[in-house]
């Protein structure tokens, strides 16, 4: 009674059953539960956008029991919420990240409040390098999934066909597609949340817009730029105000790297620790000015 299709079917069902042992349903918002992964002993990783309550959060465990969970910390920028609960259930085993390639057959394994384990199948449709989410979170690897996440499945485990949990699937990081957070990102964010309660990100406190520069100006300022970014606003008390930077200044270089777009500023900030000094080359009133800015910490976003 076996054929190759049945074998594949059994393989997929077994993978869902295996990874489903580490997937819980989380009641963290009105009406509809979402999914979460038992990532470390007593710690659940869930999709931050599905946790709208700060307390009275409950988790439905794979063994059918419901336990109270506490919101320990959250990082909206990577859509990770960390919940703590009392359970002796084994967390998902740490899977070494193999080289993920587009086309890999993948499953999303969630848990519904009423129906137990839920699953969808698809392929890993794109694998890219590091990227930044729309809320500014740094994510080590871009993983786009060509599968459906049905209501309540955000926070589901993203697994291979052997049931190895490779990351967390969420619909909260892209409007157009399902994106998975790789395990390495989850681990890094988890470590940061556990040690300091937050993920600190570099901050200048400026509003920026790219502008094209006339060749004469850049020649006078002695920079190779064709574009710079103009400062449109300066937050009170921010590192930029203390530097000081003024509205109308045009950033040309940060730490000897040309700045042509707002993205370049964010990339430079990403590689630097809070408290580090950053040397900036600025065009102020047509005159080249150099300034030193001490990077601050970005205020929390919810």
């Amino acid at each position, binding site marked *: 009674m076996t054929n190759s299709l049945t074998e594949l079917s059994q393989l997929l069902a077994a993978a869902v059953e295996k990874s489903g042992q580490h997937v819980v349903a989380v009641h963290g918002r009105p009406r509809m539960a979402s999914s979460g992964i038992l990532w470390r002993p007593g710690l659940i990783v869930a999709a931050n956008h599905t946790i709208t309550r700060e307390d009275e959060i409950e988790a439905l465990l794979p063994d059918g029991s419901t336990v109270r969970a506490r919101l320990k910390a959250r990082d909206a920028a990577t859509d990770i919420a960390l919940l703590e609960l009392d359970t002796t259930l084994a967390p998902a085993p740490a899977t070494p990240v193999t080289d993920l390639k587009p086309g890999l057959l993948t499953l999303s394994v969630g848990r519904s409040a009423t129906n137990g384990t*839920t*699953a969808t199948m698809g392929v890993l449709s794109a694998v890219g390098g590091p990227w930044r989410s729309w809320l500014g979170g740094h994510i080590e690897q871009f993983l786009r999934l060509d599968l459906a996440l049905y209501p309540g499945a955000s926070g589901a485990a993203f697994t291979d066909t052997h049931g190895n949990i490779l990351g967390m699937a969420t619909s909260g990081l892209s409007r157009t597609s399902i994106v998975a957070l790789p395990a390495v990102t989850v681990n890094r964010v988890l470590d940061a949340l556990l040690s300091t309660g937050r993920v600190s990100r570099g901050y200048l406190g400026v509003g920026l817009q790219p502008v094209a520069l006339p060749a004469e100006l850049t020649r006078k300022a002695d920079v190779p730029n064709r574009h710079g970014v103009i400062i449109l606003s300066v937050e009170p008390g921010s590192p930029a105000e203390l530097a000081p930077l003024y509205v109308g200044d045009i950033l040309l270089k940060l730490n000897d790297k040309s700045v042509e777009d707002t993205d370049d500023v964010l990339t430079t900030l990403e590689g630097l620790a809070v408290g580090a000094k950053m040397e900036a080359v600025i065009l102020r009133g047509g005159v080249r000015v150099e300034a030193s800015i001490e990077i601050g910490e970005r205020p929390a976003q919810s």
Partner: protein
Amino acid sequence: MISASFGEIAERLRRSTVEVKTAGEAGGGSGVVWNAKGMIVTNAHVARSKQATIGLWDGRQYPATLTSRDAGRDLATFKIDARDLAPAVQGNSRALRPGEIVIAVGNPLGFTGALTTGVVHALGPVAGVSRRDWVQADVRLAPGNSGGPLADSQGRVVGINTMVVAGRLGLAVPTHDIERFLRAGRTATPHRCRRATGTLEPFHRSVAHRSHSGYTRCAGLAAHRRHSGRRRWPPIFERRRLERRHRRGGRPPDDPVRAWRQAVCAGTGDPARGSVIRVQIASGSPVIRAGLESMLEDQPDMEIVDGGGEVLLVDATEEPVHSHAEMSVVAMCLATFPRPTWQPQSMRHPRA
């Protein structure tokens, strides 16, 4: 069956799938040959009349008679007088596990014998649709798949494809419910009922719920009664009155069916308790239909009958549609659908 390739499984399933066309309808649904005696199982919303034409995989066409129909579970059976049928093998819907591969065959959008595969998403009720069991399958279904088979990886039928929710989640009536229906075989003789004339209109509005914080966007059906004879408040006003009372601290209209029943009673005269309220909805309004069905499933004395546009006795219901994209579960029945009009046309030059 020792070993069969995917192609063989698909072909066998395709031969057990039929096209169901009811009189006066532009499109059609699908059905499953249930046994060699000519029993065809399909959805009740495909079986819109007592007579239908069943088209087999090899092109043969047979007239069929409706033998049973259960609008609540959305199942119906037809009988055809044919030989050399290829009945479907029945599987065990209770033994399915999430992640197992499933195959759906049907006649979506006018294509005959189209096949699609996916995996079982979950098993059980779907919040916002109904409290009944469903095989929830991550397969791509389209209008015209209604009544067609959903089979496991060995080609054994585990459900009848019925509707799509949340954009693309296919819901199939599980085989164990089909078997229960076949044993009971509820026939749909419309009961006698009081009649009033009116129309149903979809509406969208914001309603403050006491039990939840903030506002919820609600979509539902507003019932308007065409006035005749003794003047009464039309139901829409009655419903507003209930809502107003609720805002002032009265009993919340938490039970929409009850609220609507009150509204209907106020608008149409009071049907005796226990009498059958017949809700006839305009054809071609699958969303309205699905909403009604989910609200009326626990009301055995209410029944939905498809009509040709006019509504006989007005009842209506209200199903909250959550504004957050992740929470919206909007049901769309895979009802019949007109054949595509973009079939190739001859490129003959017009005569001069």
